[in-house]
């Protein structure tokens, strides 16, 4: 391994904390019922969605080894179950692991 692991951990943490820290500073000037607050709320949900879409379609790590069609089937199936089961979170999450492990084992 070329670089020191502890240093890599510290750098990763620092790069992560910066966004949280700047967020607190910006928050001081923003009122709860202002338009800017609403705009940031939209930004928070849209960046999260962008990240999720990226993880599902262009994943890193273990997920990258599964065919994208299989990942797609799992996500759509679980989302359908979530909507049918009146927005219960437990069924789709537990099922997603089992279904993907099964499909990945067999195909």
């Amino acid at each position: 391994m070329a670089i020191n692991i502890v240093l890599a951990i510290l750098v990763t943490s620092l790069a992560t904390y910066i966004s949280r820290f700047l967020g607190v500073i910006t928050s001081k000037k923003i009122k709860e019922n202002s338009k800017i607050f609403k705009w940031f709320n939209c930004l928070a949900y849209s960046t999260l969605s962008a990240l999720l879409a990226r993880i599902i379609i262009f994943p890193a790590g273990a997920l990258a080894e599964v065919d994208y069609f299989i990942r797609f089937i799992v996500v759509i199936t679980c989302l359908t179950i979530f909507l049918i089961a009146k927005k219960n979170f437990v069924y789709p999450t537990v099922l997603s692991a089992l279904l993907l492990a099964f499909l990945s084992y067999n195909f």
Partner: protein
Amino acid sequence: MNIKYFLKGFFCIKSADSPAIALFASFVAIGALFKSIGLNIQESIFSTFLTYALPGSLIMAESLIVGASLLNIFLAVWLVNARLYPMTVSLFPLLTHKNQPKLKYYLACHFIAVSAWLIMKKNYRSIERKYRLDYWIGVGAANLSVAISATAFGFFIADYLNKDMMVGLAIVNPVYFTCVMVGAMKTIQMSLAVILGSVLGISFYFVSPEWCILLGGFTAGTLAFFIGEMNGN
């Protein structure tokens, strides 16, 4: 620190729609990954404790494998975790109160991660403003504890996990949060933010894989905001 509100926040982790399962599964996968790339148990726990943001940890792990430079790691992690900035700005104005010491906000912001953030967004109205920060610290501490225990657990069971199980663990988190995002689509603004965010996030990937989350998220969120405002939300 008001202990009663701290505990009230802490035990939110037990609720039915809690992110605990998804959080646990994904950090078990991270713990196992850390072991496989050569971190020891202290380093693995230290990493989750200090970073506590999954995509960043994943990037760190991949960078260690390919031997990327520290500057590369910094930039890549910063870009993928920059979403924490709008998340903080859309949460902390709800928690401020003049009786809370300033330093506490800078420590409490470490708990910003999607799981705790969602619990807080859902529950803040039911908590008196004065105690919201204490409640938030409780929620955050519970989620971080789950993440740390899961990392340690994953590290120890790594040898018993095969490739298919790892893949199964890795999908739980994205599926859980996809469900949460779809569940949040209650207004025009929220629905557009989620749908456009996904579509543009992917579209921008073809322009720049590093910048796609930020560029896609920013464009989508801004569009959603203005379209929502024009249509009375």
